[in-house]
């Protein structure tokens, strides 16, 4: 009579509460070795790139919009739904751009951090 095969019962892997991870790299970072510093620098570089990209979006919008209205005053005469175009653009149109840029940045920053945590845990 063969015994029932043994199975390993595990809990589902959850992202919510990551277990503390101890790895050589964590120790490197903790103990301020050259290797640990390299890891931190690489993370900072990626994060800074995301940040500057978002800042560039803001700078372009904020820099270009006033110029557009100065160079093409005819735009201001256009009305949509009885409201002058500049009022629609400045009052309602720009804010969704900010929300979108912010949401995109948060998504990227969190993904970067997750990838970094995984990388550290693996190595």
């Amino acid at each position, binding site marked *: 009579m063969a015994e029932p095969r043994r199975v390993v019962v595990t809990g589902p892997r959850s992202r919510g509460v990551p277990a503390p991870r101890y790895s050589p790299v964590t120790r490197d970072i903790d103990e301020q070795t050259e290797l640990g*510093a390299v890891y931190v620098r690489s993370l900072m570089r990626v994060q800074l790139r*995301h940040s500057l990209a978002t800042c560039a979006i803001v700078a372009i919008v904020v820099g270009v919009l006033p110029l557009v209205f100065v160079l093409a005053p005819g735009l201001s005469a256009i009305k949509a739904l*009885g409201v*002058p175009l*500049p009022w629609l653009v400045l*009052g309602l149109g720009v804010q969704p751009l*900010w*929300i979108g*840029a*912010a949401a995109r940045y948060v998504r990227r920053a969190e993904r970067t951090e997750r990838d970094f945590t995984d990388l550290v845990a693996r190595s």
Partner: protein
Amino acid sequence: MIVLIVVTTLTAVTGVLGAATVVGSFGRRGPARTTSDFLVASRSVTPLWNASAISSEYVSAAAFLGTAGLVLTYGADMLWLPIGAAAGYVVVLVLITGPLRRSGVYTLSDFAEWRLGSRRLRHAVSGCICFIGWFYLLPQFQGAGVTLRVVAGMPVWVGWAIVVVVVLGTVLFGGMRSITVVQAFQFWFKLLALAIPAVVLVVIWRLHGGPDPTRPYPPAFVRPTTVSVAFHVGLRVPVGTQGWVDGVVDGRRYHGEKVLLAAGRHVVAEDTRIAFPAGAAVPHAEQIPVQCGDRWARPFGRSGDHPLFGTYSMLLGMLLGTMGLPHIVVRFYTNTNGRAARRTVTLVLAMLSLFYVFPTLYGALGRVFTPELLMTGDADATILMLPGRLVPGLAGTLLTGLVAAGAFAAFVSTSCGVVVAIAGTLSQSGSGTGVRKFRIGAVIAITVPLTLVGWLGTLGAAGLVTLAFVISACSLCPLLVLGVWWRGLTPIGAGAGLVVGCGCAVAAGLTQIIAGRQPGWWGTLLGQPAIAVVPLTFLVMVVVSLLTRAHVPRGVDRAMARLHLPEELLKDRP
């Protein structure tokens, strides 16, 4: 009638604040006990609550009353303000939110000392924070005074007194945790207090046939209007107008006779009443530009001094100034971690975008229905006067009461936030910490602007908030950005930058307040100095830091790891 307004208003005000204070003190886990409770709400506030609280503190008297008044007076040029305000939060989010929360310190002064290891730098930062906070508190007091004067005809000091009592009560007995809940609650109250009357007003505007403020004529009275002039003023009359005058015009006394006011300048003595017929063009107070509707509705429609340069400089000040506002940044410490702090900012953006639609709407409606504010110069009262003007009887009184209560919520919530931030900074500056010192700090925080506000009169109120933004952009912004992202920053470099930046910004602001607006390039630069001073401050910080490279703090790698690594990698650290 007026008595009824007062009763409604005050009942609404006390009701709201009372409810909010009780929720604040006794909600959650009993009254605040430890210093940590007082300062950062023990870091247990969820993103939605915290985002509401941040928005609430940001939506101050300047945003609530000032934006509407500025739109009424200057038109499309003021639409850049809400854009700059929201964009400022995007910059805060991407550059400093996550790292600042992860640094795990309480205030900006703590951050400076922790990151750069210098006690003297800490004091410099505390000084900047106090300046910014005080400039931010002044217009709150003024707004409260104006609100009660316009709505109930009370002397201005009654408004100041109410704000002081409520703010001190909330801050002294509840600390930050209490006011996080109060603030969050008040944001939604303020939003409703603006939105409900706005919907009613738009419906009534349609019923009036939707008079268009953008027609190419100077603004005119839509119905017969009697204007009382409280102060001796010079008026500019754009088109010859008739009116029945009771008082003194151009040195002659009239008793209700019909007078022809020819186009040009006229002087009106105090306590003069002029009744205008419907359709008469509105005389403008001298300091307010006369604009036809089409120019008013167009960005850069005014022929001022270098408007494009001024707009860019103002936008830069708002973009970078938001991150140094002490009452905003201290709130991120109440999030559970860096990730929650980032999500909070995204929510703040959405909430502010929604909120700012309404002051703009009120400003445009005010141009049609309360154009006499252009004559009296009381444009800050636009939001308060519109409901009573358009909605007759009890309903109008109730709506006015609602708006006024919302305005008071704005003064109180902003003042609370600023006072807590200053008090937290002051109480940690001396040796040791404690609840007692926090309370003393709160009293100091509110006393300084209170002694100044009586002095200042109505001078420069609108500019004061902008000045707070500019000081913050020129001093704390470079410190934070370089401190978070650049290893090479030294305490000496940071200190030099703070002195140069804060000094230039305060000097420009005070010159503007004392000497008035100057003409030409020089005046434009003094009025909006951010575009010149911010790069200068960055330059000073970087150059001096490079020159004093030997003084880079020793633990900089550890600090950078702490700022940028996700929390779960650092669990075992203090």
